[in-house]
């Protein structure tokens, strides 16, 4: 339901949300001018978390930038690592003399950790969205399951949030001994938990009606405003980089792509907040399937890290010291959509330009457009449904 903003008395109220509003997923400030209960204008104010990560990238050597990519998006740091490393590898390989290939086992581990991280990231997204519209319990359920992923990652690389695990040429360490069993056990347990979660939230009439037809974005709008990932698919655009521009071993896995189709029924419309929510849930299920499929493909570990099959880390120590000149643009599918790196190298140890395009940035760019005319109470629901992570906007 959209109500046209009108100014019968010309009286408008300016409401400052943030920069520390709990529903803003970080340090985001939104200045809302409202006419009664209806939003007339909405002006996001960014930059509170700007750490000039792109500038830092010009000052450090190629492998040293990987830990900074963790901080670009700490909710899905594995995917953020992966995006940069793939771009850096592609730029290195543009010199025909650099013939290294990421070992097969390394590629499998990369997809495994990326999908596990996608699960935990989407859990935060759907849990936080439910919290934003007033249901606190689902958030705790989401966070509790996310702990399972964090525990696996902690054993894998010693960190729970900022992993610095994926490296240029592979991954930093091999899987630990009991990893495969633990991941399998987690997936089984988690799949059962998702049934409960869906009963609690997804099929809950109050929640569904609350999100139906809120902030509907048409497919054409989503493309023109540069929405990516689940936000784009929620609007009914059938596009996923894992399937359509496969990188790593995604091409062998046959990724299934869910798209929005007015899941809320008669009250809903394609591209509303509920569609974006359901697309994320379906992606979680797809990630579970992908994790299991990768575990089937995983070759046994070899003794040497740079073994082309059973290894996990190609040796690129020399190549990154003398990289080729040139540029590259690579995009990968992070949980918040396309994470695109545009790298320019001048042939020295430090990159000449590091550009990181993130999904949240363009999602925030559409706020002032979709918020016009919605209810004040829906503002947080809209922010939640786009699943923005503020450090990713500000970088």
């Amino acid at each position, binding site marked *: 339901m959209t109500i046209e903003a009108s100014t019968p008395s010309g009286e408008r109220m300016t409401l400052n949300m943030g920069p520390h509003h709990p529903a803003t997923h970080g340090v985001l400030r939104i200045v809302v001018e409202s006419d009664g209960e209806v939003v007339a204008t909405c002006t996001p104010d960014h930059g509170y978390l700007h750490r000039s990560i792109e500038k830092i990238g010009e000052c450090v050597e190629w492998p040293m930038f990987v830990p900074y990519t963790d901080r670009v998006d700490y909710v899905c740091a594995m995917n953020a690592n992966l995006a940069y490393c793939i771009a850096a590898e592609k730029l290195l390989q543009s010199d025909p003399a650099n013939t290294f290939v990421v070992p097969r086992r390394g590629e499998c581990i990369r997809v495994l950790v990326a999908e596990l991280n996608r699960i935990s990231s989407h859990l935060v997204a759907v849990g936080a969205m439910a919290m934003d519209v007033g249901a606190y319990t689902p958030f705790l359920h989401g966070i509790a399951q996310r702990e399972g992923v964090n525990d696996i990652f902690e054993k894998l690389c010693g960190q729970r949030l900022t992993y610095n695990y994926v490296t240029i040429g592979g991954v930093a360490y091999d899987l630990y001994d009991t990893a495969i069993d633990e991941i399998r056990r987690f997936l089984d347990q988690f799949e059962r938990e998702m049934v409960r979660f869906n009963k609690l939230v997804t099929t809950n009439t109050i929640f569904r009606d609350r999100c139906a037809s809120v902030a509907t974005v048409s497919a054409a709008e989503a493309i023109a405003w540069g929405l990516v990932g689940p936000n784009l698919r929620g609007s009914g655009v059938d596009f996923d980089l894992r399937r359509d521009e496969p990188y790593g071993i995604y091409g062998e896995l046959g990724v299934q792509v869910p798209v929005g189709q007015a899941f809320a029924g008669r009250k809903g419309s394609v591209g509303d907040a509920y569609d974006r929510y359901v697309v994320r849930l379906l992606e979680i299920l797809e990630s579970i399937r992908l994790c299991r499929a990768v575990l089937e493909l995983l070759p046994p570990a070899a003794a040497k890290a740079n073994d082309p099959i059973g290894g996990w880390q190609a040796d690129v120590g020399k190549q990154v010291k003398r990289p080729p000149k040139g540029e590259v643009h690579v995009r990968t599918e992070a949980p918040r959509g396309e994470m695109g790196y545009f790298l320019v190298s001048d042939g020295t140890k430090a990159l000449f330009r590091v*550009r990181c395009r993130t999904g949240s940035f363009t999602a925030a760019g559409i706020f002032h457009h979709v918020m016009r005319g919605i209810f004040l109470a829906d503002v947080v629901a809209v922010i939640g449904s786009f699943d923005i992570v503020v450090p990713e906007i500000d970088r």
Partner: protein
Amino acid sequence: MSAVANDAIATAVLAQFPAVQQKHADNGRAFLLVPKGDLVAVAHFLRTQKSLRFDALMDLTAYDLLKYPSTPPSDDIAVVYLLFSYQHRHKVTLKVLAPRAECEVATVSGEWPAALYFEREVFDLFGVRFPGHPSLRRIMTPDDWQGHPLRKDYLYPDSYHGVAHLRDGQHFEGSPPRGGDTP
């Protein structure tokens, strides 16, 4: 849905806009160098032409050519447009050179509204102005920030509103020794 090869895209654009040049980066990556004056027309052509239909702006960014080892040396700011077509699944890269002295490029937000935010970022970090942009304000740095941080000749300020960034006696490489507020 039929993807058009990069050379064919270039041919189609060049036929319409003879001033556009097809170039290659040092590692062979192809891009189209568009003269400043032609940018909006080229963008409109790429977006609306049926066989091309670049309906999405993947990214809009820039880099400073100062200190880049190119021949001949240049101090322009290169604004980079990465376009993608969801319909045909093909890509193209456009570059526009903005000279330091008159650092402005017409906005493409009329073609792709996604450019509204990207252009604000490029304006903030590189100081490229986009005439026609409805609200060209800084986005990352505070409104009263001096300078544009991603330019290669950027001098780090020693302090901001009286808050020192460094301890006494230290100073950033290339910056004058500490004293006074933000330049």
